């Protein structure tokens, strides 16, 4: 599986799915349209600044709140290649795996990496490299079962293959 590499957008604890994609835009389920409003209520500049491959780093409980799959869909469609956090809220965690948005849990990386750092994530090994600081972190590997879903490109292709 290829690695992710990009510039970091950094957020704190409890980034909820209402700020990732506010419900006023949930009358659409088009990924491109959702991406235009990604992170709007927490970071108005995100959509203007984000480039394909960029990485979101946050601390505890990323993606808490609503089960809306529109949240990881918006993040993925905005071009984000990976989300690193200390912990993820469980529905967001499932949704990200199910739609094929790479996510990595790593407390130390989540704490130390700052906005603007250039970061690389190797999905095979779970190693996170902060190229700006020259530091490395070991992210938590997925259980084999979840890795299979990710390798298939999401839950639906995985079920189709079974």
């Amino acid at each position: 599986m290829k690695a992710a590499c990009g510039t970091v957008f950094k957020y704190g604890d409890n980034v909820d799915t209402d700020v990732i994609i506010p419900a006023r835009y949930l009358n659409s389920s088009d990924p491109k349209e959702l991406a235009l409003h990604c992170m709007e209520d927490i970071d108005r500049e995100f959509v203007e600044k984000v480039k394909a491959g960029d990485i979101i780093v946050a601390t505890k409980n990323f993606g808490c709140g609503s089960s809306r799959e529109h949240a990881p869909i918006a993040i993925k469609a905005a071009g984000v290649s990976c989300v690193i956090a200390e912990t993820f809220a469980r529905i967001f965690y499932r949704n990200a795996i199910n739609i094929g948005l790479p996510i990595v849990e790593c407390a130390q990386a989540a704490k130390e990496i700052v906005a603007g750092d250039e970061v690389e994530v190797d999905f095979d090994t779970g190693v996170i490299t902060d190229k700006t600081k020259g530091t490395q972190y070991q992210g938590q590997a997925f259980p084999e079962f979840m890795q299979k879903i990710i390798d298939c490109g999401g839950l639906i292709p995985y079920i189709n293959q079974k």
Partner: protein
Amino acid sequence: MGMTMTQKILAAHAGLESVQAGQLIEADLDLVLGNDITSPVAIHEMEKMKTKGVFDKEKIALVLDHFVPNKDIKSAQHCKCVREFACKHEITNYFDVGEMGIEHALLPEQGLTVAGDVIIGADSHTCTYGALGAFSTGVGSTDMAAGMATGKAWFKVPSAIRFILTGKPAQWVSGKDIILHIIGMIGVDGALYQSMEFTGDGIRCLSMDDRFTIANMAIEGGGKNGIFPVDAVCEAYLKEHSMRSYQIYEADDDAVYEQEYTIDLSALKPTVAFPHLPENTKLIDEVGDIAIDQAVIGSCTNGRLDDLRIAAEVLKGKKVAKGVRTIIIPATQKIYLDAMEEGLLKVFIEAGAIVSTPTCGPCLGGYMGILAEKERCISTTNRNFVGRMGHVDSEIYLASPAVAAASAIAGRIVSPDEVMGS
């Protein structure tokens, strides 16, 4: 090693004698739920599947409740998509305008959720049915699609936190105050990936509506599910509402709980969660002077008949403060009708409140009560995140129906005691 109630239900649905925390299992589903926001995404995902059709047309519930009656053209398109899907697959439990209610109030009322079930729903508050002794949890649209097609879902068996409830709550202390107290204590990620198992003799003092409210907000503590033991009160509810047979599971005496909290319900006071997290709780006498512009009484958390009765008890013969928009939303058509027959709607209208058709509406900032910049709302809903009910610089204070009704009268956040003069 003993199992918790949640673990026993999951083991039975995975065809296993026992399971332990952390184990990955595939479980058979008794019900798969979706609403007008999450179902269109799931329907789109289902189209990509090799398996065509649904696993069981009677074990799927589609409820149009978030943006209906349609608030705009785009939401009308979404509802049309769900309506056509329901028609094509002859989904038995499809609820459109006129029959619908807020999903988590509607399904138990319709008898579709019973003790011992495993239920997934593409809505985070699906955990509500734990009040009936079921394992139920929120998932996303892709899980919903897979569930509708295969009747199965994968789960990581959760470890557990036990909450031992003792004593009897005082007047004006409701299920909402209990769960806000718990979330204030453990934090919004305090039960992350875990089940919240409620036990203790204090449960006897809680109505089913109180239990629904508590289980409903397990997700606000980060929980995978919240679950109550099945007692006589629960069995009476099940028998009144459902024709389905149910299965009672009890935790083993040696079940493992990672943490235990004992909560004396008689010591609790009305509790308010300040912006912008449900964990920012204060007791009603610590609130200070918070003027409000709007009061919302409703939602999957607090739009049931008990909630409306309490609100009416506080509002009866009084007027809401000038300038406080008071919006009351019975959660289902049946609750609406019952409230009408009991005279509650008259109380609300005479007090200067409005009564809406069932909808999730303002809870998630959809419509029917959106806040402007710098406005404040006291709300019986479940989340007070930034921008949740409207403008990014508006504020939501979460409370019980009694506190919301009293605050609507006072124009600021107050205890019901203050307006009842006791």
